[in-house]
């Protein structure tokens, strides 16, 4: 049986002896990535702090390599577990190299002098996070993106088996988020380091994690693989999303759909409908969409935003019932939008719809510019 690097056994965490979250039981194997997600203030940091012993646990046990962490000496824990915290660091006159080299603490002698080998490890850690070029810069004078990577390098040069990161991607722009998570994922896969972290970006969490823990209320709301967790319902419940939507499969986020009966009918397809759906949502104009094939990318956006969607099963042409439904919707609106999707073959029914609209005197819009001008 594969042994767990880190295991929490019915752990209760909280402040001043009052449990905030109880009965946390989860485990992490070598090279796995486990991510805590959940709304602000749910207690993600509290759990992480309890794992890293910054906070006393209230009940239960944390096992590191199957040993009760309470019984391991501080410097020995440091050889196995490193952290990246959210606390602000502001040392005066300290280069990134010096900062990172502090990670060698558990290995150096009583005066903390670095050996040649230590320096090599520090250099490699900086290299791993692509920060070798800023090694001699003052730590207080680098950007947020660089700082986060230097913090990670410090943890890496501790040569741990487990790294715990508290919201490592907050305040980073999208490029630096992807870059940082890329480094983590590479580290887990190629160096076998297990990673525990909290993330706010659920879409990124889904892509990088082997296991997801949903933190909400006084218990763990859900715990499992991303495939198990990312059903639309779990996420909506976890974050109490009442307006707007999150498409778990694609990681697509849409804002709340406009209220009221449709004022126009959008004939889309092949992704060309998406800009129109979003433009209508921004202007607060309710609309209907159709006829979309069940496998059309437009459907992912039309479904949460449109009042009604007429769709076929995947790769199937429209039935007469579908067409009748679409025509009924067109009857009820004044405007029909043609998004410019080629019509013929499998979706030739859409050109019939266009013709139907023209015959019934509906205003036709054929571009986003026209839509912008149109009174709806």
């Amino acid at each position, binding site marked *: 049986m594969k042994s767990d690097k880190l295991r929490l056994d019915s752990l209760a965490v909280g402040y001043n002896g009052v449990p905030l979250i109880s009965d946390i039981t989860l485990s992490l194997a070598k090279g796995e990535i486990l991510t805590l997600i959940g709304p602000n203030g749910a207690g993600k940091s509290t759990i992480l702090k309890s794992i890293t012993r910054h906070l006393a646990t209230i009940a239960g046990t944390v096992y590191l390599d199957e040993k009760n962490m309470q019984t391991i*000496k501080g410097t020995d824990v440091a050889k196995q577990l490193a952290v990246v*915290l959210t606390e602000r660091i502001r040392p*005066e006159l*300290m280069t990134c190299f010096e900062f990172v080299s*502090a990670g060698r*603490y558990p290995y150096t002698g009583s005066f*903390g002098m670095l050996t040649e080998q230590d320096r090599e490890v520090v250099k490699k850690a900086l290299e791993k996070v692509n920060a070798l070029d800023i090694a001699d810069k003052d730590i*207080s004078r680098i950007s947020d993106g660089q700082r986060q990577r230097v913090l990670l390098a410090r943890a890496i040069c501790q040569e741990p088996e487990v790294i715990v990161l508290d919201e490592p991607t907050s305040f980073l722009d999208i490029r630096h988020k992807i870059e940082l998570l890329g480094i983590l994922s590479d580290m887990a896969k190629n160096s076998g380091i297990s990673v525990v972290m909290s993330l706010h970006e659920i879409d990124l969490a889904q892509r990088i994690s082997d296991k997801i823990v949903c933190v909400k209320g006084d218990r763990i709301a859900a715990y499992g693989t991303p495939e198990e967790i990312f059903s639309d319902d779990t996420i909506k419940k976890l974050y109490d999303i009442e307006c707007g939507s999150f498409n778990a499969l694609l990681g697509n986020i849409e804002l709340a759909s406009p209220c009221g009966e449709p004022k126009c009918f959008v004939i889309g397809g092949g992704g060309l409908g998406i800009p129109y759906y979003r433009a209508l949502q921004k202007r607060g104009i309710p609309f209907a969409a159709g006829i979309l094939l069940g496998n059309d990318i437009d459907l992912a956006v039309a479904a949460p935003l449109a009042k009604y969607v007429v769709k076929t099963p995947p790769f199937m042409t429209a039935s007469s019932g579908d067409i009748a439904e679409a025509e009924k919707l067109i009857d009820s609106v004044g405007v029909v939008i043609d998004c410019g999707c080629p019509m013929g073959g499998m979706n030739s029914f859409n050109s019939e719809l266009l013709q139907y609209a023209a015959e019934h005197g509906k205003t036709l819009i054929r571009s986003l510019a026209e839509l912008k001008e149109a009174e709806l």
Partner: protein
Amino acid sequence: MSKTRNCIVFLLFLILLIAAVILSAHVGSVSISAKDIISIVFRGDRSNSVAYNIIWKIRLPRIVLASLLGGALSLSGFLIQTFFRNPIAGPFVLGISSGAKLFLAITTIIMTGLFNQMPVSVTVVASFVGSLLSLLLVLLFTGKVRNMSILLVIGIMISYICSAITDLLINFANDSDIVNLTHWSKGTFSAATWQDVYISAFIVLPTLLVVFLASKPMGAYLLGEGYAKSLGVDIKLFRIFLVLLTGVLSSCVAAFAGPISFVGIAVPHISRQLLKTSKPILMIPASFLCGALFCVLCDLAARTLFAPTELSISTVTSAIGAPIVIWLLISRRRKNEV
């Protein structure tokens, strides 16, 4: 690159310190040439008994005491700055000097009331005990308070309370009784004896060694408590340890020379800027040496600038130290704006 810089800085400190010592021994109401100084000190040349006595009995103990206590004060400043992770903290912010003054005032009043006299040795003991008492109070809070800035405010409040009580006592005391107290609170190295030197060396030098041995966890502590803890530093113990060492060093200074202002804030900053690093293993010896140099020079200025009138040491250290602190505040602000 940084290694040569460090060597140059340390060499500079040493050379300047030696020069300052010789200059200090040379200047005074009786000027003694460097050649004579060296032959008196190293060969025990007694041919000029006046010069011999001036050097051995007056100037040398004073210089050695100034350098020992200056080093101690600067080092305790470095420790407290490390503790608060704030380069503008000073060793007397914890209320240590005002505690010493209060205890000294009480002792003076009792002593003059009972025996009609206040020997110097009692002054030293009283201010040392007073410092340690206020330190104990601070330590009690250190264990309880998590937030550093709150501790800083508590220190300042303790200062105010002690000063208030001291002022109250002074109101009801005879002026003649508290001359001693006023004299003490201005701070001076005059009337230093070899005995003072031995006792302070006995306290300061072992403490210096202990501080030096603790430079590794101190370096980790610079990253912040969270990281230090994750590296295996026992934070609670370490904080108490830091406050204790700071207290012992600054109490010793308060006892033998009074509360000397600004050395503890300004000197570690100068050393840090010269070395361009915060590494404790370099900063500990550097601030000690630089503090010694600073105090020897300030003491020289205090006794020679307006001779025969002697200034209090704090007059000189404040005049030099306060502008440095202002410069420090402004340059920090500028850096943060970048």
